[in-house]
């Protein structure tokens, strides 16, 4: 009989390491958490990333600006539309391209629908991590609706390549707008049901309240952005602070809460879904007629020499693109500042002193997307 592998360290037999992942149901991909445990309590946690590194930034250096388009939606596959459109907007800003107004409205509708679908998936997976399987499938049911709607116009269900420099590939028709409005109506009826099933549930509240509280210093130390930051009481949102596209024409709130715990992060995202719905409805009601592509788009994209930075608000926070151009067709460097990477870095401090069951709740509430962290 082989020797039993003993689980403690020699110097301290009460503690042991537990490798959570890279193959683990709750690490949402291939994140590896190296936990130093004492019983169920976490003494030290170390997130180890890089298992799904696909070298998107390096790929950008080997292809021209247009060819990088399909990559963008694969950085964060859950809010691919926002990344795709965001990249287009960045290059348009550099080139000084004017986008037709109808295209801008279509972009807003698609991005906000995508934000809702991303939040829905987060909602479901958080609940699944906490052991509630049924809300997960309700969320997927609703998300399926969004995917169908977006499929009608973008031709893809997940990794969109809908934006082009100067507009979008395809015009929307009345059916699309009607479907969007129908979805908004349906989803507004579904949200109270979610509230009864999940938000009010005492077990869920006990699992989330006062769990994984972020210290205020963390916000600055790790440059936290997105719903996490807003759950700490900071009213920061790129859509409001540095409006891109035509977000300044819309009327929406940036929800904030002060608890900084898992439950507040949950509530913030739910409220964001409400706000996104309202943006979509406003956009559908005001969408003008006209072309969806700018009339004069240069065939060869050659941004003037220089360094540029452009940011959009993805479903997870501040997504920035730092583009260095040497005046040729191929970018010299594109650095991507992705929100989950910064947010995940704070995990080490937050997990200290919590329990294993809290780990999955906190990890779920941060809402990470591994391919976006590893890029």
């Amino acid at each position: 009989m082989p020797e039993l592998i003993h689980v403690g360290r020699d110097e301290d037999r009460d503690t042991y390491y537990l490798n959570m992942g890279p193959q683990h149901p709750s690490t949402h991909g291939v994140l590896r958490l190296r936990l130093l445990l004492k019983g169920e309590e976490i003494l030290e946690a170390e997130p180890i990333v890089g298992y799904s590194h696909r070298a998107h930034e390096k790929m950008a250096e080997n292809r021209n600006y247009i060819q990088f388009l399909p990559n963008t939606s694969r950085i964060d596959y859950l809010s691919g539309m926002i990344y795709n459109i965001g990249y287009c907007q960045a290059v348009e800003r550099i080139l000084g391209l004017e986008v037709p107004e109808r295209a801008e409205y279509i972009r807003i509708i698609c991005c906000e629908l995508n934000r809702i679908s991303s939040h829905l998936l987060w909602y479901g997976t958080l609940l699944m991590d906490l052991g509630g399987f049924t809300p997960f499938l309700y969320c997927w049911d609703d998300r399926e609706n969004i995917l169908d709607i977006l499929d009608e116009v973008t031709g893809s269900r997940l990794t969109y390549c809908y934006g082009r420099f100067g507009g979008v590939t395809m015009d929307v028709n009345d059916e699309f707008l009607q479907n969007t409005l129908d979805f908004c109506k349906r989803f507004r009826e579904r949200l109270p049901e979610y509230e009864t099933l999940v938000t009010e549930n005492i077990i869920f509240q006990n699992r989330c309240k006062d769990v994984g509280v972020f210290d205020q210093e963390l916000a600055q130390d790790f440059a936290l952005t997105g719903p996490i930051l807003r759950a700490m009481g900071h009213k920061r949102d790129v859509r409001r602070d540095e409006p891109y596209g035509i977000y300044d024409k819309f009327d929406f709130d940036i929800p904030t809460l002060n608890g900084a715990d898992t439950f507040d992060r949950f509530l913030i995202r739910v409220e964001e879904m409400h706000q996104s719905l309202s943006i979509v409805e406003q956009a559908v009601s005001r969408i003008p007629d006209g072309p969806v592509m700018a009339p004069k788009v240069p065939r060869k994209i050659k941004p003037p020499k220089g360094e540029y930075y452009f940011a959009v608000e993805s479903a997870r926070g501040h997504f920035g693109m730092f583009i260095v151009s040497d005046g040729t067709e191929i970018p010299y460097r594109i650095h991507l500042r992705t929100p989950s990477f910064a947010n995940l870095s704070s995990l080490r401090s937050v997990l200290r002193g919590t329990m294993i069951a809290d780990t999955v709740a906190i990890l779920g509430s941060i809402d990470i997307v591994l391919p976006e962290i590893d890029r």
Partner: protein
Amino acid sequence: MQSLLDIPRGARSLLKGMGVTIRHFFRKPVTVEYPRKRAPVAKAHRNAIVLIEKDDIGSHNCIACLQCEKICPSACISITGSRPDGIAFKRPDKFDVDFALCSDCGLCLDVCPTDTLGYSEVYDAAGYSRADSKFDLLEAWRDKEGEALGTLRERERKKKEEREAKRKAAEEAKAKAAAKEKAEGKEDDKTGNGTAAS
């Protein structure tokens, strides 16, 4: 103590949650049983690319310009083309797509000058090996190629004839004009001379 006060509220919240699930229990499932029923697929949905028929040719109108091959970010298109006799443009001899590499970005459709690229309607293509995802787009058109070439040649010949006719007409017109000019010139000369004489 706090937990005791929570009991009625907590129990009510749990019962309300159970109410939600039992309501769904009696509703119709939303599943579409895939192999038997197929959910409708969006018209715009991007699948593997195909060459689409152009009515006036009776076949595809690929001119092997290699624009799509050049712009494809994942290099999944490979084309070779040659110019058949009697036609001004090239025709593809080989048009292979490795759909396993394709990322459905649609850039090839954007650059196609003859709009002969389109999306196939098969959305659930599957295979047992990587080779199964390699498509020969010309396969569907091979038996129509001769006919298409005939049409194209005919068209080319007509064009040529037209051009020839035009050229001839233009030449004739030019000759006429020149002759006229000559005549007029003579007249002019005459008048000129006349004026000069007077």
